[in-house]
């Protein structure tokens, strides 16, 4: 096995990994960086983010507003010290991307234009048409080429972290084109591996979003935090789950039930107005909108299609010109994939899994509890999204905390030396043998594609928009069974070159570990908060017992050990989470109380 020695190794070359790599290079050009990704950087799933990135921009906006929107949107499960740092650094990171060439949409005077987004009090979402993630990713990738200290390992599939002396000191990866293993020894390791949406069947995520980094860190004892909070995006394409950005509603689109009625007014988001109004109606937060669609279905007010029940996204009143200018990708998806012209017809939509709020526990500095290991972006749980992420907060999460992870890891790497090389290489060899055994083993019976499908279906029934204990228990049992069956896997393709039968099997191994954490964390949280909603006697938020983060620890073959951790509250006491007219009243009440206090 080849060994490569660097100062910092980064796994994942999406927005987080690229931003982190540039941060290391800027901190000290003498530090060697290895940027490892199972796909070429521009294929990373950041590419599919559509709507935009939030930062306080307008004169009538404030950091306090962004903070309040984020903390309230997260149903008070956010770590408020981290949110304070976050909102204060969004704008400078977006300006940095502007300087690097990101083609942000502009106002006529040449300044940055902003658009409305769900759950945000003031328009603050920077956008590049409806391809914001695409443009951010390509800008970061192309800019990274300027820095010679960044050595990329494109199409290297990471199989394990190397931990010695209680510190993370490198990774082992397979070169996909040859099947050969490389040990990348490093003084600090950053994970920017994205979310885990592929544990569910119907989702907006790319095929690569398989929780790799989460599972690797978890297996080495780093806790996964708050994974029960999986975000359903309300407007996805029936069948494939492809995303129709929230910007469709930010630009003024309506959601209609089968009677052509703007049903969100029945779910505490009204009253309806013709024009979009921040935090009202279609600009409510994603959890509430998805839940409303679920209720409409139960009331028989949705539309039946071969791909299940749908509601209508109506953008006809916006006109072709505006749609082509502001939402070209959405136009293309509707026309090419569904044969629908959104200027003249409604688009059928239904909720689909979109985003992983939880992840590897990381603090404000992107440090995980495992020294030398940093995590940022969707794979991490640093506390900014709480129980429900607001749209356009994740594209800034990846750069604010990608930058943080890069500069912290750079500093850390200068303060330590690697352990004995022979010990590290022995571990790397063991990791190689373990990954190889998945493909070389004979006599197995199970196909990983079958296990993956059964997992997706079970996760949908147990961890959907609304949850009950019997359904969650059934999914716990099912995932436990699948993890056992995984041991009896048969990978038919035994070859070395581009064997993605083998890599797919390794991905299913990652997915199953993370899926088990999701469902056990959900079953243990006996309350309803944000994206975790129960129908079995725990319909309300319970701040006495569950104003706490879930921490799930790996125990090997068995289910995770669940512990809890206090939420960090600095200035916003948990309050009533309300939108629409009720939200305005709640804001007034809070102001009054603050004035009296």
């Amino acid at each position: 096995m080849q060994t490569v020695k660097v100062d910092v190794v980064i796994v994942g070359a999406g927005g987080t990994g690229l931003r982190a790599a540039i941060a290391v290079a800027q901190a000290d050009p003498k530090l060697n960086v290895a940027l490892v990704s199972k796909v070429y950087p521009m294929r990373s799933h950041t590419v599919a983010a559509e709507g935009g990135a939030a930062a306080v921009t307008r004169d009538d906006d404030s950091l306090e507003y962004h903070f309040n929107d984020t903390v309230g949107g997260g149903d008070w499960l956010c770590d408020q010290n981290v949110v304070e740092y976050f909102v204060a650094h969004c704008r400078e990171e977006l300006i940095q991307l502007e300087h690097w060439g990101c083609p942000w949409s502009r106002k006529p005077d040449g300044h940055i234009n902003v658009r409305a987004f769900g759950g945000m009090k003031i328009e603050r979402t920077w956008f590049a048409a409806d391809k914001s993630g695409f443009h951010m990713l390509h800008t970061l990738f192309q800019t990274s080429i300027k820095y010679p200290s960044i050595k990329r390992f494109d199409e290297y599939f990471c199989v394990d972290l190397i931990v010695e002396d209680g510190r993370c000191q490198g990774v082992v990866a397979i070169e996909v084109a040859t099947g050969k293993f490389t040990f990348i020894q490093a003084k600090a390791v950053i994970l920017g591996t994205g979310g885990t949406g592929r544990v569910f069947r119907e989702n907006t995520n790319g095929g690569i979003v398989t929780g790799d980094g989460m599972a690797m860190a978890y297996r080495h004892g780093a806790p996964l935090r708050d994974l029960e909070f999986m975000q359903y995006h309300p407007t996805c394409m029936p069948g494939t789950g492809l995303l129709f950005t929230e910007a469709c509603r930010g630009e003024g689109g309506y959601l209609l039930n089968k009677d052509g009625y703007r049903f969100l007014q029945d779910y505490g988001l009204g009253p309806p107005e013709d024009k979009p109004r921040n935090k009202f109606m279609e600009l409510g937060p994603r959890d509430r909108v998805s839940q409303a669609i679920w209720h409409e279905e139960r009331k028989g007010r949705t539309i039946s299609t071969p791909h299940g029940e749908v509601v209508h996204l109506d953008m006809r009143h916006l006109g072709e010109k505006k749609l082509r200018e502001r939402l070209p990708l959405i136009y293309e998806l509707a026309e090419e994939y569904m044969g629908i012209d959104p200027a003249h017809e409604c688009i059928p939509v239904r909720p689909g899994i979109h985003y992983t709020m939880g992840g590897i526990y990381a603090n404000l500095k992107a440090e995980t509890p495992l020294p030398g290991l940093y995590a940022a972006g969707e794979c991490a749980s640093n506390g900014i999204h709480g129980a429900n992420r607001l749209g356009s907060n994740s594209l800034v999460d990846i750069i604010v905390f990608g930058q943080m992870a890069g500069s912290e890891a750079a500093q850390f790497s200068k303060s330590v030396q690697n352990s004995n090389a022979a010990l590290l290489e022995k571990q790397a060899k063991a990791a190689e043998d373990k990954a190889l055994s998945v493909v070389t083993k004979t006599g197995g019976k199970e196909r990983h594609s079958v296990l993956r499908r059964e997992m997706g279906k079970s996760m949908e029934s147990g961890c959907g928009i609304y949850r009950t204990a019997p359904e969650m228990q059934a999914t716990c049992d099912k995932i436990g069974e699948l993890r056992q069956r995984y041991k009896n896997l048969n990978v038919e393709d035994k070859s070395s070159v581009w064997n993605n039968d083998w890599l797919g099997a390794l991905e299913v191994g990652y997915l199953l570990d993370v899926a088990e954490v999701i469902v056990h964390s959900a079953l243990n949280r006996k309350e309803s908060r944000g994206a975790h909603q129960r129908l079995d006697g725990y319909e309300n938020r319970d701040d006495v017992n569950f104003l706490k983060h879930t921490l799930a620890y790996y125990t090997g073959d068995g289910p995770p050990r669940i512990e809890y951790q206090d939420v960090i509250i600095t200035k916003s006491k948990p309050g009533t989470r309300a939108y629409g007219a009720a939200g305005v009243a709640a804001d007034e009440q809070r102001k009054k109380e603050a004035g009296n206090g």
Partner: protein
Amino acid sequence: MADNTRTIEIEVLRYHPEQDTEPHYQTFSVPFADDWSVLQGLQYIKDDLDSSLSFRWSCRMAICGSCGYMINGEPKLGCRTFLRNYYPHKVRVGPLDHFPIERDLVVDIDDFVGKLEGIKPYIIPREPRTLEQGEYLQTPAQRDQYEQYSSCINCLLCYAACPQYGLNPGFTGPAALALLHRYNADSRDEGWEARSEIVNAEDGVWRCMLVGYCSEVCPKGVDPAHAINQNKVNSTLDYFGVLKFLMPKGAAK
């Protein structure tokens, strides 16, 4: 689930360097629903019929650029090409033309990635700015000058379409030259002189034979042929030394 009532024949190119001396086609019968893409057909084959079939894919929504294949001889994205449009005839899927095959539908794209890295695809600022100074001002009209060229997803359909790249792999090629133009045309950038060597080189814009098929196959409405032509004009002006005089702050605005 939608009914999979119809069955289509998909012929896929197979080549495994550890076993095969020559590529060959293999036919699979795939039951499909009306909204299935060619990519979904390949996924069905991989999951249910033959797990050894190798191909790249990820986003499924024509933005990650992974799933470019030759589909009935035309370069197309597998995720945005639909089986219903071929039925009842069979559909033939092969790897992108003009690239070495690594295995089955997977091609080696390192040549392109090297070219992309070589064109200095980053802002070389006219006036460096600090974060405190805020954003560069750029009007919507200035943004329009380069926007379409920034929409390339690196799917490489244009290289598979380009007869010159097929004959002469040294040619910088459509996507890389369009990206070069994207930066030259950006009001924030002053790198055109640094990039002019690539434009004017033997394998630069002058290799292009004006076929224009690159622009025709682009799934994102980028017009690399136009970018290349624009740079031929600039290259000529550059040769006669008038470009700097005409456009002191950069070419091809």
